[in-house]
């Protein structure tokens, strides 16, 4: 899909008619459109317009649970001007897809009546041009055609915003849900999921019948399995509830921040607090990763406690080796034969009690049988390896402890700064600000305790799942014992086996797609990273639990140690891989919208992004603010020869936004320099 032109009329901040012509690949190498404006000018609004036009959707994933009434689309000034009369709001899109041209228009009508605003669907019209012929598409077929071009379930992958990127860098329930939902949408496995649930129902109902049967052991196992599965169900439900509560709490915090924002005098403190909180979340994530690393090294570290023993035993065996005792220079069975026959191998007699006899007894005592000698040699080899690593293990332990200490110290620092900032906000003369701030603190504390509860429940759930597998195995054995003559048991076994088979296939699929996404993300990661990153970081992996991990050049997990910028690159690579896989081709066929992606990126990272994204996206629409898109970035973009259009979103006198096209060559004049911020 290539966007050519968009016309918005009375849509959100855009009063009247506004046209945006995108640069298209057919116009040459250029495929990057920059839409530039301060926060709140309507950059995301333009993406929202496209989603509305294509799917009739008002809601974006970032809106969360915001009520539909607050997501109104009709321009407020127009509603006020035409109070009591309907106002038409429309979005028209001209695009091409696989050599066919489309012109889609969607409109709603709105009206302000007193304090209330009403909106209703008004028009949906699609024209298709093929081989020079243009014809209207029946209204009933419009949604189907659009869905075939771009599945509505994957649409959210094509808008990269800071929040999404932030969510993906945190190993939280939200991150895993987002990734899991993304992959499931990609696979389009609704029928398979329904089939698994349906056959599961059948299996459960058959087992319920069986549990009322006279087979005691079977009944016991079924009861235990039932209890276990009920417990899992409760845990999963609670996890979902917790994830929702956390999400709502975060949204409430955002809302509170917006309220606090109204108090101008504390604005810069609010921004400072926001930045500190982001930093704090980052550090807390590092704590999680560091604790995971600690768990991984406990075994290695523990052996240091008995290091003196290990060394002593190693040296003892080593000595025995050197003395020829292990392996014995003379076999034990030979010595035993000599003693029994009381005759040496040279033929001379050996009398009991003689010196020779004592020497031979001595040898016998020092030798052991072949099996023991082999085992001792094996042990010597293992101990040698363990011993050789002591120094490195001790260093690793010290390093990890130091690292942890540093992170904690940084967190303590950030918390002190946060307290200071909160005090500044709190001492504001506006009482409302203090109340809002207190409310905010409560929400933060609530989030912390909800996250702790979620971690706890996740652990218990994992234990239950493992227990379930063991119970199912025992149950199957029991059913088979009974099943030879019992039809109900046979049915039950068949239903469970089928459920297992379908779940297996589902796991295979998701595994294959995770590997595919991982490979694709890794390829992108490698081209987007800076030089240092490329040397140290090898690949991105989607784990079995849908969390993301970065592996270093030794293929060891390294996520805890990467910088904030590298995390951002990791997220962008992952989302782009998801988009690429959704597009099922080498180039992402859907326009990529990136909302302020440069946030915490170093110069080299920005450069790589600017050079590489136009290569794997057919169209790149960059939504940028003045702090993000400066002369530096503009120059990089110009040099890449991929930049085709530049639009500025300007505030009008009546508080609306207008779209003004600016010539690229004179763009530098309106952009700031790095020095302007110092």
């Amino acid at each position, binding site marked *: 899909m290539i966007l050519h032109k968009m016309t918005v009329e009375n849509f959100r901040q855009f009063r009247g008619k506004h046209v945006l012509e995108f640069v298209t690949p057919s116009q040459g190498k250029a495929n990057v459109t920059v839409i530039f404006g301060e926060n709140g000018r309507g950059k995301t609004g333009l993406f929202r317009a496209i989603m509305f036009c294509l799917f009739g959707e008002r809601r974006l994933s970032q809106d969360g649970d915001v009520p539909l009434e607050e997501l109104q689309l009709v321009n407020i000034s127009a509603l006020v001007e035409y109070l009591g009369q309907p106002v038409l709001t429309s979005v028209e899109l001209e695009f091409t897809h696989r050599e066919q041209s489309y012109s889609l228009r969607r409109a709603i009508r709105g009206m302000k009546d007193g304090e209330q605003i009403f909106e209703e669907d008004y028009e949906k019209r699609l024209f298709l041009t093929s081989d020079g012929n243009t014809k209207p598409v029946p209204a009933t077929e419009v949604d189907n055609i659009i869905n075939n071009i771009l599945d509505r379930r994957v649409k959210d992958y094509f808008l990269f915003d800071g929040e999404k990127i932030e969510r993906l860098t945190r190993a939280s329930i939200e991150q895993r849900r987002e990734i899991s939902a993304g992959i499931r949408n990609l696979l389009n496995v609704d*029928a398979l999921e*329904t*089939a698994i649930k349906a056959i599961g129902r*059948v299996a459960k*109902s058959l087992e319920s019948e069986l549990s009322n049967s006279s087979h005691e052991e079977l009944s016991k196992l079924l009861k235990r399995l039932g209890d276990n599965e009920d417990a899992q169900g409760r845990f999963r439900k609670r996890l979902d509830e917790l994830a929702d509560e956390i999400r709502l709490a975060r949204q409430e915090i955002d809302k509170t921040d917006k309220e606090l924002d109204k108090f101008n005098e504390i604005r810069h403190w609010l921004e400072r607090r926001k930045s500190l909180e982001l930093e704090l979340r980052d550090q807390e994530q590092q704590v999680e990763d560091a604790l995971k690393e600690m768990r991984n090294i406990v075994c290695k570290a523990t052996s240091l406690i008995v290091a003196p023993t290990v060394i002593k035993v190693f040296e003892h065996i080593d000595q025995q080796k050197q003395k020829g005792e292990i392996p014995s220079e003379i076999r034990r069975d030979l010595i035993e034969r000599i003693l029994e026959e009381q005759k040496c191998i040279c033929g001379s007699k050996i009398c009991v009690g003689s010196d020779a006899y004592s020497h031979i007894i001595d040898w016998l005592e020092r030798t052991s049988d072949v099996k023991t000698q082999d085992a001792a040699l094996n042990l010597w080899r293992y101990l040698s390896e363990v011993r050789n690593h002591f120094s490195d293990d001790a260093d690793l332990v010290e390093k990890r402890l130091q690292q942890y200490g540093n992170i904690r110290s940084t967190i303590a620092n950030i918390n002190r700064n946060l307290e200071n900032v909160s005090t500044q906000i709190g001492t504001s003369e506006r009482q409302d600000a203090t109340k809002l701030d207190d409310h905010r603190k409560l929400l933060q504390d609530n989030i912390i305790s909800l996250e702790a509860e979620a971690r706890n429940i996740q652990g218990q759930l994992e234990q239950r799942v493992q227990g379930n597998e063991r119970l199912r195995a025992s149950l199957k054995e029991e059913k088979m014992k009974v099943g030879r003559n019992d039809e109900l048991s*046979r*049915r039950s076994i068949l239903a469970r086996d089928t459920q297992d088979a379908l779940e297996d*296939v589902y796991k295979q699929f998701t595994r294959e797609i995770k590997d595919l996404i991982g490979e694709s993300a890794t390829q992108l990661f490698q081209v987007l990273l800076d030089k240092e990153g490329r040397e140290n970081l090898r690949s991105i992996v989607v784990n079995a639990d849908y969390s993301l991990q970065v592996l270093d050049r030794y293929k060891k997990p390294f996520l805890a140690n990467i910088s904030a910028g590298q995390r951002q690159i990791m997220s962008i690579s992952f989302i782009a891989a998801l988009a690429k896989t959704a597009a099922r081709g080498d180039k992402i066929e859907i326009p990529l919208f990136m909302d302020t992606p440069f946030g915490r990126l170093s110069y080299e990272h920005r450069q790589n992004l600017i050079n590489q994204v136009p290569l794997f996206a057919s169209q790149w629409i960059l939504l940028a603010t003045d702090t993000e898109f400066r002369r530096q970035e503009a120059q990089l973009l110009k040099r890449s020869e991929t930049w085709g259009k530049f639009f500025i979103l300007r505030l009008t006198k009546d508080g609306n936004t207008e779209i003004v096209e600016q010539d690229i060559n004179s763009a530098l004049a309106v952009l700031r320099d790095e020095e302007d911020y110092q």
Partner: protein
Amino acid sequence: MISDKIIEKLSKYPDEVQELATQAIRLSESFSEAAVAEQLQTVVRRLAKQQEGDSQ
């Protein structure tokens, strides 16, 4: 189609499992979970009887 790919992957399972799984998927393309579960009860009964017949 995704369903065809899934059915391909089921080929390593016993015949009755394959048949039941295939039926479950095909039905799920058009019906709700509850409706599919109800219809599958009959299929399971038939296949279990078939298993008994095969083993005798």
